């Protein structure tokens, strides 16, 4: 028996509490089932790429902070690597080690927010606050080092803005010891909670070929079962010196590539990041962190593309230099933006409540999507 | 006029007035909500008659079940944005004749029946007696009704089921 039905358009966002910022979703609903999703972006567009053309090379760094404001360190990291490649300078060992440690701490901090907000969208308020409590500890480490808690401007072309604090090594070790049990607690409280599993397992399954076709990277791709990590595939900095694994989604409680897998990959990645930090923290050589910083950054004519494994995926910087003080063009391959493309595909046939669970598991930052 | 009389007239007024609105309001959603007050008034009168069990059943089944279902239907078919379903008046003359005859019959029955006037004796509890009667004298009917409802339930579920693709 066919009844004549109509779909309903529901506007979700830009002021919706769980669209992670100012994303607007236009949902086409059949009852509560989703027929189609149209993400509308651009509410946070700040013309980063155009702006960078008017800035000198070091002045761009504070702007990269503001793209993915949950992983500022890593944005700096990618940018300075690109400019250093353009300039052809080698940074001191000490700088490389500190950069890796900072980058991995930032990855943990960023994943904590991703996991926490994913839980929060599903209704678990308490784990979210526990994770924020732990993130604050990482931010304190950063603050101690460079004086800022969110937008660091810490990595400079050819070096760092500050050397690490004398207490940094001790406090970081303390943090690692403190943080390991917290992950276990989180797993007990949220990850393996039956309700959480029901809400995320088999929801928003992203098959591997779709993921590759859309260019999805980062934990979202690894959740679908492909161990692709730029830290291993296209090693930069000194990542080849550390022993770590690339966790992939295995479909422990559902299908490979579902929301739960993407979530769980992040938890496993935090553990791997802890491993990297543990290895690196004892090996930091002595030296000057500002030795290689050039007085005037004026790269020769040329282009460069570098990519790093940002907590959200492949963060690429494409820089064209025309030999001036300002870059001619800075193009960013923002992982959140690319990952968001696949969102509509994931939501089809799910319920309204799943939209936010899926969105949380993709983990986008609107600052980076819109740039 | 005692306290109970006042309450009785209150409930009666609620029932009648809201019943009037149910038929006279043009907005269907309003009608449905007025029906709520009608049911409520009737339940109140049941309580005053000492039929507390029936009163509660009245609220539970009619308000909690049937009315909610009705509201569901009305609200989901009515578009949320401004388009309102309204009831109109059609076939005024035949309806008037029909209602006139019906009213006449009711009034005639009211007048010509020999009402027994007894001092009111409100039974303390009715629940137990109802229960006993249901599983002794009326057990067959009770069971049949149960089966009927079950069939209706299954039928409804099978109609409402999404088509398998």
């Amino acid at each position, binding site marked *: 028996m066919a009844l004549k039905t109509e779909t*309903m358009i*529901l506007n979700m966002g830009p002021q*919706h*509490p*769980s669209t992670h910022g100012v994303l607007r979703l236009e949902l086409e609903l059949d009852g*509560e089932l989703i027929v189609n999703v149209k993400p509308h972006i651009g509410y946070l567009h700040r013309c980063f790429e155009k702006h960078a053309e008017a800035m000198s090379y070091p002045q761009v760094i504070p702007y990269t902070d503001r793209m993915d404001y949950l992983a500022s360190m890593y944005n700096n990291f990618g940018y300075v690597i690109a400019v250093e490649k353009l300039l052809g300078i080698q940074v001191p060992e000490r700088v490389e080690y500190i950069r890796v440690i900072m980058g991995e701490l930032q990855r943990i901090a960023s994943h904590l927010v991703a996991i926490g907000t994913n*839980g*929060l*969208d*599903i*209704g*678990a*308020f*308490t784990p979210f*606050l*526990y994770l924020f*409590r732990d993130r604050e500890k990482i931010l304190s480490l950063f603050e101690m080092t460079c004086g800022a808690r969110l937008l660091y401007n810490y990595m400079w072309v050819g070096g760092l803005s500050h050397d690490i604090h004398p207490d940094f090594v001790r406090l970081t070790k303390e943090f690692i010891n403190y943080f390991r049990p917290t992950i276990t607690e989180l797993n007990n*409280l*949220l990850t393996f*909670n039956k*309700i*959480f599993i*029901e*809400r995320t397992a088999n929801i928003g399954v992203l098959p591997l070929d779709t993921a590759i076709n859309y260019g999805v990277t980062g934990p979202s791709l690894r959740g679908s079962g492909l161990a692709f990590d730029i830290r291993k595939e296209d090693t930069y900095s000194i990542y080849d010196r550390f022993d770590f694994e690339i966790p992939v989604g295995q479909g422990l409680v559902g299908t490979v590539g579902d929301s739960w897998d993407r979530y769980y990959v992040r938890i496993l990645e935090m553990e791997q990041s802890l491993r990297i930090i543990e290895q690196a923290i004892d090996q930091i050589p002595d030296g000057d962190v500002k030795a290689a910083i050039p007085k005037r950054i004026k790269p020769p004519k040329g282009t460069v593309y570098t990519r790093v494994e940002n907590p959200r995926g492949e963060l690429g910087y494409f820089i064209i230099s025309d030999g001036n003080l300002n870059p001619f063009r800075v193009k960013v391959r923002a992982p959140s933006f690319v990952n968001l493309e696949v969102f509509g595909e994931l939501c089809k046939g799910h*319920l*309204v*409540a*799943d*939209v*936010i669970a899926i969105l949380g598991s993709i983990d986008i930052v609107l600052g980076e999507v819109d740039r | 006029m005692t*306290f109970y009389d006042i309450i009785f007239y209150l409930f009666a007024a609620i029932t009648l007035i809201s019943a009037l609105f149910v038929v006279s309001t043009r907005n269907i*959603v*309003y009608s449905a*909500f007025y029906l*709520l007050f009608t049911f409520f008034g009737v339940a109140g009168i049941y309580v005053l008659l000492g039929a*507390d*069990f029936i009163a*509660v*059943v009245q*609220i*539970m089944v009619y*308000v*909690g*079940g049937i*009315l*909610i279902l009705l*509201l*569901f239907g009305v*609200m*989901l078919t009515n578009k*949320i*944005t*401004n388009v309102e379903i309204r009831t109109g008046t059609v076939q005024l003359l035949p309806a008037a004749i029909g209602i006139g005859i019906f009213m006449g019959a009711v009034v005639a029955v009211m007048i010509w029946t020999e009402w027994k006037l007894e001092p009111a004796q409100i039974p*303390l*509890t009715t*629940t137990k007696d109802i229960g006993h009667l249901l599983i002794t004298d009326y057990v067959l009917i009770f069971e049949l009704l149960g089966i009927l409802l079950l069939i209706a339930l299954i039928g409804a579920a099978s109609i409402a089921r999404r088509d398998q693709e």
Partner: protein
Amino acid sequence: MYQFLFNLSGSEIIATIFTAAVILVFILLFVLFAVWFERKVSAHMQDRLGPMRVGWHGVLQTIADFVKMLQKEDIIATEADRKLYTIAPVLVFTGSFAAYAAIPFSSKLLGSEVEVGIFYLLAVSSFVVAGILMAGWSSNNKYSLLGAMRSAAQIVSYEIPTALVVLSIVMLTGTLSLEKISQLQTAYFWNWNIFGGPEFSLAKFLLIPFMFVGFLIIYISTLAEVNRTPFDIPEAESELVAGYFTEYCGMKWAMFMLSEYANMFAVSAIVTILFFGGYQSPFGYLGNSIGAEWLVPFEQAFWFIAKGIFFVFVQMWLRWTLPRLRVDQLMTVCWKYLIPYAFLNLIIVGFISLL
């Protein structure tokens, strides 16, 4: 209490109004306390402090909030249906207030001794549903309507497992009256229904596990009936913003909150009465042992409120622990898990109580 006031004043009207007023005052005081308590419980569970400024540890915070709410402008959206929009919060509160009429706080302090008490409680909750639907529809907001629909579907379905468990208790005690059910589980805690009731026999011990299952079922389903996490789908702030009361503000919104917290206590009271001895003290009465008979009702009221608040605390505890279910999973839990278990439980309890 009604009888007492009636004797005192000699007027039915005054007695009625006073009884109602006492209950209303209790609800208001309880809500003031519960809102503060909820905030403190959630804060301490999340390693926070919660409100600390107004009064000792913020005890007067709710009053401050209430004053703020009174000052708020009463905004009604232009496209909203004014009449229904205004009635809805009143209707919702009426529903939860009416439930209190039948709850026995102690052997003396009870609004009305309704013979079909527990049945009545289940019935008046349908007013809340109608109110919620009214609020959702009249707001003229898609989120509100979705929230109202979900809420109505949820409350109507979860009435079934509740009723089934209630039925098993009714079979055990042979009465529908809340007052009588409380009276039966007298004196000490091992006489409570959760421990198989007052009669000392083989059946008592056989009943314990099934009573426990029954308690779990009714607790879960009442949780759903008052829209608390993990069943707070109708007002899920992360998906439907606030569900049926998205558009409300100021005192009208406060009415919804009032009703929500009043309902929390009401369902806790139901659980207490059915399984945990109602107003009966777990350890005997001080008033009886020192010969001060007048003390007993107060002691009973104390125990009743204490038990009620304990279950309210558990509700809060669950809320700050669990994520929320999806709307279809909510129905799955109800129809595929709770109802079969409740049904099975009902049959087994029926057989055992025949022993």
